[in-house]
């Protein structure tokens, strides 16, 4: 049964692809649906067209005869149907191979692999097997991600329940999504809020329950020149970083040195057992005290004071002395 339908779909595709002109519905029925009643044919043909279109097959509808508009015809233009030629150098093919390992999201990982299989079918050599050791990193666990991704592509309005930061009340929101962006490790959707009549940003992890599409595709235009990442950066809360000044023993603290904006060598240090260098870094506070502590007596905190107090307190607690500030 499934095989029979596959044959019909593929034969329909071939028929519309090889004809230079529109093919009439009547001829399609004669050749591919000869055993079906007129009613059954209508239903099957509609469904078959939809299935081919959902694969991305561009079926065009047009008038066969310019003077009579009662008979529509169908065709697939080869240049619209086929993937254009792409020639890739081996290093370009290598990064595209790695791209198949990026998504940690089942549907998009599969879509990426499918795209690469089509490239392979063009004769491009992309080795997918050598990369099984690489861990995917781009996750999108938010349940509403798929809806916003699709809505962005189709330009479909979305309705969803949302809790604002620091708020407890769930509110229903209506948005024309312009795009989704990942910022500081979190996904956001930006767009035009039709209730507030202004551009807004929403964090997907704060969307409650299911987001639903509320309108037909192509309902609105994305303002020309919209740069989604720019809007996200402008509207999303800034991740806080601060200026950190550390004294690091010569030959130590390699990881810190790699992230340093500025290194001043041979400065006066807290002891004279070695030469010391001064590192200036721009960093978020998260995990910094842990990292500094890991270096033991090879790293000394000059600034900020809060970090210094945290480090000293934790060391005192570890050796059993009274603390000067609050517990970290």
């Amino acid at each position, binding site marked *: 049964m499934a*095989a029979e339908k*596959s044959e*019909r779909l*593929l034969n329909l*595709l*071939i028929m519309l*692809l090889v004809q230079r002109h529109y093919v009439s519905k009547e001829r399609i029925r004669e050749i591919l649906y000869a055993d079906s009643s007129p009613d059954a044919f209508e239903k099957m043909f509609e469904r078959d067209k939809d299935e081919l279109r959902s*694969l*991305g097959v561009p079926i065009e509808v047009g008038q066969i005869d310019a003077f009579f508009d009662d008979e529509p015809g169908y065709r697939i233009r*080869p240049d*619209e*149907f*086929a993937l*254009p030629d*792409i020639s*890739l150098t081996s290093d*370009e*093919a*290598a*990064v*595209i191979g*790695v*791209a198949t*390992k*990026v998504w940690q999201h089942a549907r*998009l*990982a599969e*879509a990426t692999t499918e*795209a*690469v*299989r089509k*490239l392979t*079918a*063009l004769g491009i050599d992309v080795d*997918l097997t*050598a990369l099984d*050791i*690489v861990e995917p*990193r*781009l996750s999108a666990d938010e349940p509403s991600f798929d809806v916003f*991704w699709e809505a*962005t*592509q189709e330009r479909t309005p979305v309705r969803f329940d949302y809790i604002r930061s620091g708020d407890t009340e769930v509110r229903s929101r209506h948005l024309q999504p*312009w*795009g989704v*962006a990942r910022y500081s*490790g979190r996904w956001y959707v930006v767009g035009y809020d039709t209730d507030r009549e202004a551009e807004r940003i929403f964090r997907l992890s704060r969307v409650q329950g299911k987001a639903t599409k509320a309108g037909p595709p192509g309902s609105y235009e994305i303002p020309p020149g919209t740069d*989604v*990442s720019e809007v996200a950066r402008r509207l999303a809360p800034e991740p806080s970083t601060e200026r950190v000044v550390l004294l690091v023993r010569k030959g130590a603290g*390699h*990881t810190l040195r790699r992230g340093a904006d500025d290194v001043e060598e041979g400065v006066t240090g*807290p*002891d004279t057992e070695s030469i010391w260098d001064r590192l200036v870094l721009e960093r978020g506070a998260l995990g910094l005290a*842990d990292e500094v502590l890991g270096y*033991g*007596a090879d790293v*000394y905190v000059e600034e900020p004071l809060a970090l210094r107090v945290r480090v000293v307190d934790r060391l*005192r607690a*570890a050796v059993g*002395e009274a603390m000067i500030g609050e517990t970290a």
Partner: protein
Amino acid sequence: MSAQPSAKDQVARLLTLVPYLHAHGEVRLDDAAKALGVDPDQLFGDLKVLFMCGLPGGYPDDLIDVDLDALEGPDGVRADGVIKVSNADYLARPLRLSATEASAVIVALRALRNGAKDDTREVVDRALAKLEAAAAQGSGPGSAPGLAAAQIDPGDGAADTDLALLARDLQTAADRGRQVRLSYYIPSRDEQSERVVDPRGVVTAGHLYLDAWCHSAEAPRLFRLDRIDHAEVLDDPVETPQEGPRDLADGIFSQSSDVTPVTLLLEPEARWMPSYYPVEEVREVGDDRLEVVLLVADERWLTRLLLRLAPHARVVSPAGYADTFTAAAQRALSLYG
């Protein structure tokens, strides 16, 4: 979206299979199945459908020719049979990328771009430009995948491109039996080192590791890929017998005998530790505290770990390790006068 085998999926596979065969000439059934990510039996089933398709004339010459006899033996499908398909030139090109496919691959490449160093970034840019052009070209009215992808920004930190490419290069060097010169950072000693190794393979155990015979140590060693600053594949063939990498399923210390089991008591603030470090045992000991057993090969590594966790982890046994840690903390504290 359904898991049921559907006619639609079968047609999609055939639209990739025919151009694949067209581009690659004569291909064995199992090779084609592997390249296209399908089961050989399924691929054979797909070819049987193709056999029934062709031009709308209805004459035998109009049908696509598939040599099914070459693929069927007395015991069923022959994986080593060579696929021969002809009379299907009008399907010689794959279907263009769907909007979702184009966006998914373009956004994945953008994530790679954001996570890459300059040299790699330049390569990714070239690949992106070609794919974006292909996605935009020939796409019908109303659907412009290239444009749709423009609305998705994966941001920073979504991909570790250089690490992935490094893993690929090192695995290739291992497969080809070539020596590699490594510039490697040893965190337990906070030290940068240069060494030449015979690579055996890239393995994963929490992190990615290169298993290799180290010429300086004259012993097998594991190198964490994210601590390799630079790796240069040399033209010299490996000096030790080529063997596959070790199986790290039992943890990275399982082969080594000179390790000490160390028991730590973790306060609630340090409960996250066992998810990030290989531990042998985890026990709940009340008040939200954990007791864990770690295998320690290098005491300096343990001291650094305890300093990071200070004051929320302490050594239960052996006592000597506790003293070393307290001394290190005391020394660090003395810097602040």
